[in-house]
């Protein structure tokens, strides 16, 4: 149960850090800004939900950069054709799930390493996003669509709610369903899972498809926030999403890590960048700092990983 304690302390210290930042940085702890932070982190956060599961089964999904551009491009174009919003959104999501499934197939059936599969699939999706509108961005979507990104419900931005929902789904799947248990088992010891007669390929397909689903939601949300689909809007999100998972303690060695923590990681990255912007720190210097934090955080969590049953 040391883990649970660890998690609580993690969150507490996270809060403490934010408080510290609040004291040091004017305008940081204003409600408006904090909502901003969450909204800006929501894309990374949603991506991290899916990414967590992928990393837990010892995979990685580099295709989300492409998907964050491709899926909303599909939805957006349909929407501008006058297709009903819901249908266009669904189409975008299907595109994401489809690409995810393809990743899964390559990994499960042809056992191509996820790293390379998803890298290339991402590149292809990126390319498709460019082709669809000749590399131009599209915008001027129906108000109700833009509302998803910028409107708020009961005073809480819709984006934040969406993030919560996706996080909820992720937590439910990983922690409250048999599938979740099997996902972690898969990350822990694949042979055992196979012996149990569990459909391993099915699991992998599901996980990658779900990651594609998350990417599509993230992309659509982003485009709703910007009232735009830019064909290369996904680029900045890939590394930040992985970093979010890592900062949230998702182990690249598989079988370890929680969705909620990964979302926490996303919020951390979001607030760091926000703080640095508020301080007017040069973006190049931001890179330096973010890089340092990533390494230090993992170093820190690594330290705690060497506990082991003591010889009697």
């Amino acid at each position, binding site marked *: 149960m040391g883990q649970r304690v660890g998690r609580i302390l993690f969150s507490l210290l996270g809060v403490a850090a934010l408080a510290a930042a609040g004291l040091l940085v004017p305008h940081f702890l204003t409600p408006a800004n904090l909502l901003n932070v969450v909204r800006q982190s929501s894309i990374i956060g949603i991506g991290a939900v899916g990414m967590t599961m992928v990393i837990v089964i010892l995979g990685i999904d580099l295709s989300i950069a492409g998907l964050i551009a491709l899926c909303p491009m599909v939805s957006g174009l349909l929407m501008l054709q006058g297709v009903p919003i819901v249908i266009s959104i669904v189409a975008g999501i299907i595109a994401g799930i489809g690409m995810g499934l393809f990743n899964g197939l*390559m990994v499960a059936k*042809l*056992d*191509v*390493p996820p*790293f*390379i*599969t998803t*890298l*290339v*699939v991402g*590149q*292809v999706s*990126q*390319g*498709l996003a*460019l*082709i669809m509108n*000749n*590399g131009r961005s599209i915008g001027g979507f129906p108000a109700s669509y833009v509302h998803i990104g910028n409107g708020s419900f009961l005073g809480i931005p819709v984006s934040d709610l969406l993030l919560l929902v996706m996080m909820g789904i992720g937590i439910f799947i990983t922690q409250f369903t048999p599938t979740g248990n099997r996902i972690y088992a898969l990350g822990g010891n694949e042979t055992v899972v196979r012996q149990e007669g569990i459909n391993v390929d099915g699991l992998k397909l599901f996980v990658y498809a779900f990651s594609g689903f998350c990417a599509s939601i993230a992309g659509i949300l982003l485009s709703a926030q910007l009232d735009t689909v830019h064909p290369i809007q996904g680029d900045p999100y890939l*590394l930040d999403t*992985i*970093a979010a998972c*890592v900062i949230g303690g998702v182990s*690249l*060695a598989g079988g370890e890590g929680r969705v909620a923590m990964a979302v926490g990681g996303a919020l951390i990255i979001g607030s760091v960048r926000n703080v640095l912007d508020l301080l007017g720190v*040069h973006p*190049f*210097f*931001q*890179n*330096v700092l*973010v*890089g*340092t934090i*990533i*390494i230090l955080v*993992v*170093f820190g969590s*690594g*330290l705690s990983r060497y506990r082991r049953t003591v010889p009697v």
Partner: protein
Amino acid sequence: MRGIIQHALKNGSAVILVLLVLVGIVFVRNFASVDNAAVIVRQSAIPAIAVLGMTMVLMIGGIDLSLGFVVGLASTATGFMAKVWGLPVDLTVAATVLIGALVGLVNGAIIQYMKVPSFITTLGTGYILYGISQLVSAGNVITRLPPSLLAVGRTDLLGLPTSVYIAVGIIALGWFLIHRSVFGRALSAFGFNSRAAFLSGLSTARVNVLTYVLCSSLAALAGLLLTIRVNAAQPNMGGGVFTFEIITAAIVGGTSLFGGVGSVIGSLFGVLIIKVIENCINLMNISYHLYLAVQGGIILTVIVMDKIRSRAA
């Protein structure tokens, strides 16, 4: 030499490369010309140097996402030393490679002693290096580099620039290092089972750190030659795109992401495959928007083909 040829034949990427070239010769106008061949070779030389380092890192079961940013840093550094400070050529070259070695030392040290997985370490140092080279250069591009420096990589021998010969030399050295040396054996030993290797008396620290030092040094050298090639030093040279291109090349060449297995010749073919694809796309003037999709599609088919082939075998 016989060894090299055997390796080549064992390697699936050789087959694929030949197929691609045949396709090019048959279907792509202007592909089959000595000129164009020379162009492809020129374009492949520099990535070929970088992929050597990546191959070694992948062999010990690591990965180096900072490689492309080392290229950028090296480019900036070269420009500064050669143009702004006007250092002599030999000093510039030495210093640039040294900077690379330094970066590798940091990567290796963090991975070895702080136990941060290579993926994260190099992800982080990548961010950092990019930041640094931007700050140093203040985003400036340095062009019109001194001829004495340019001579290092561009002096023409039998129709090919010296950079190509440098690459060939380094590849040959690399081949012996990886396939015929104790160090190379240690690389795959650690890649397969680092504990057993360590308990057999191989020095984890030395191999680990040295590997990253070599990788970054080669990346720096690549950055130097790339700078010389375009005669412009700029921080955003290389970058993430370059990194992933190199990783793709290595994997297409049959190097395993799970460590232990690696082939210099294979990686070399990997680079050639990618460059041939890019070359064909340009020659056929495929719509610039299709570029990414087509390139990705072909690489995907290459990987699948290779998988199926190895399944059959």
